[in-house]
């Protein structure tokens, strides 16, 4: 739907605001550009509707090079919402909402109907249609700002810190409303912000920029799980990373990669020795290829000491295991529900790759609850 190919922007005076940006987005995605002030977010966004023209590279919308389209026509097909809201003070709410429709030469009747219809999307009554912008609160004004961008059913909408000037409570409400609206209407949104909470809340894809360069692009989960570098980590913030840990960490990241194992063809006496030397009360049993077969524990050995000779004889094959890319969050739940002491971790071919014990989970819980305090104390 939207594609950047080697896009750069150098302003007069030599300032390189955006350099060699390559990105591609699908229809219906909520894309959030984020980065510190002056990193080129606004510049990038304005290049999409040609308020600013790139010095190098190409931008495609649905495969069409935007530089080959008439800019006026292009802009009528793209919604635009800005932090300063930018409603026209001399026009009524209805005129403001349906301005693009007027430019597109819709008849008056239809414009009015459309404005009413849109107003109902944000739970505002039709009597607002005849009012002027300054009679509305900031939150209401920006709702109208958003509706104006939806009026002609534009498939693509650009938003430059649209909720940045609102108080936190209104901002929160508008974010929720807008996210729902976006899902319902299936729009592609390019959204600029410098607020990480906002980005994590709204985005399907987050694009992190620094000094005009792409640092990382991915889903919120991907970015929380694997921040590309220290800059991203710092930008996300330690607190958020720690908080998000159980939600995004996989068991592979926290497991003990050296579980105590034994192969099923070993003698039981050997198994006892292994247990003793490693001070464990059970052993994971694998075959020669390392595939998990089950487990044995002290109890089973004790009961079957007379009859059994090899590990295979007392093997309990009924083992619960998790995939290595399973989320820690889910694994914790399983462990608590089933009352397990540990869970073996396997890969797609059931090869044993590690073990998660209650102890290693406790570490994580510690981190997320007391992690910060400990850091502070250490300093």
């Amino acid at each position, binding site marked *: 739907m939207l594609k950047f190919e080697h896009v750069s922007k150098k302003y007069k005076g030599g300032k390189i605001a955006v350099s060699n940006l390559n990105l591609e987005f699908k229809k219906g995605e909520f894309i959030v550009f984020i980065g510190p002030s002056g990193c080129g977010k606004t510049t990038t966004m304005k290049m999409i*509707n040609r308020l600013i023209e790139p010095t190098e590279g190409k931008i495609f919308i649905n495969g069409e090079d935007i530089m080959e389209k008439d800019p006026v026509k292009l*802009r009528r097909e793209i919604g*635009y919402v800005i932090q300063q809201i*930018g409603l*026209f003070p001399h026009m009524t709410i209805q005129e403001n909402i349906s*301005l*693009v429709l007027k430019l597109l030469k819709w008849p008056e009747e239809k414009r009015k109907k459309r404005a009413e219809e849109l107003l109902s999307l944000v739970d505002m009554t039709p009597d607002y249609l005849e009012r*002027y912008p300054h009679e509305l609160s900031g939150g209401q004004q920006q709702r109208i700002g958003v509706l104006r961008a939806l009026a002609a059913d534009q498939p693509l909408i*650009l938003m430059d810190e649209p909720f940045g000037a609102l108080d936190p409570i209104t901002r929160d409400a508008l974010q929720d409303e807008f996210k729902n609206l976006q899902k319902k209407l299936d729009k592609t949104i390019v959204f600029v912000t410098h607020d990480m909470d906002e980005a994590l809340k709204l985005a399907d894809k987050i694009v992190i920029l620094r000094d005009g360069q792409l640092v990382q692009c991915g889903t919120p989960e991907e970015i929380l799980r694997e921040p590309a570098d220290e800059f991203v980590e710092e930008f996300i913030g330690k607190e958020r990373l720690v908080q998000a840990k159980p939600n995004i960490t996989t068991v592979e990241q926290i497991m003990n990669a050296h579980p105590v194992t034994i192969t099923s063809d070993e003698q039981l006496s050997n198994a006892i020795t292994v247990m003793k030397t490693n001070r464990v009360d059970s052993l994971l049993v694998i075959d020669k290829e390392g595939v998990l077969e089950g487990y044995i524990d002290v109890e089973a050995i004790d009961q079957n000491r007379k009859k059994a000779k090899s590990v295979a004889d007392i093997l309990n094959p009924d083992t619960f295991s998790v995939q290595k890319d399973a989320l820690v969050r889910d694994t914790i739940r399983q462990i608590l529900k089933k009352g397990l002491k540990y869970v073996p971790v396997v890969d797609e071919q059931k090869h044993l790759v590690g073990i998660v014990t209650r102890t290693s989970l406790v570490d994580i819980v510690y981190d997320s609850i007391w992690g910060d305090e400990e850091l502070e104390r250490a300093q």
Partner: protein
Amino acid sequence: MDLISDLLTYFINNGSYVWEQFFRHFLMSAYGVLFAAIVGIPVGILIARYARLSSVVLSLANVIQTIPALAMLAVLMLVMGLGTNTVVFALFLYSLLPIIKNTYTGIRNVDHTLIESGKAMGMTKWQILRMVEIPLSLSVIMAGLRTALVITIGIATIGTFIGAGGLGDIIMRGTNAQDGTAIILAGAIPTALMAVIADVIMGWLERSLMPVKKKKQGRNTQEEATA
């Protein structure tokens, strides 16, 4: 007391003459401002677009403004001869500065984010001018017309020197007559009155063209809203 009764007598005896001159005076001023608006508003818009032109044009209009009225009339008379047209042309020249300057200021002061909003919504340059810039600067432009009209009503009194008529005629008669104070006042008072009325009416127009309107509410609240 004498003076007032003299004045009244003059008005009663020469009512139609005073009225005629009043009307003539007003028309000269109005035409001067009208022509200046026809030229000045587009020029103001133009220099708001091309900032480099603005200093040249504005200082030129400024120079015109500083020429003493009598000197201006004299020079114009040499070129254009006697008569009303010369006076109207002089008034036109004096009206240019306030009109150009206010148009320029009005357009320049339109919030840039509004212009960009318009552009981003797909307005052409012409549509931005017509639907955004002009409506939003109309009251400032009107303030320019108001200043111009008040100035020209004052200046038009000297039109009489080159035979253009107007209330200046009555004042001249008074200065030539023995004991002509009442006659001077009979010309001066209507002139002042005209200026005040013009100022009030144009001021009202100016306010009613303010971009931020409240429906069904008085003027006072409007002023507050834009203050």
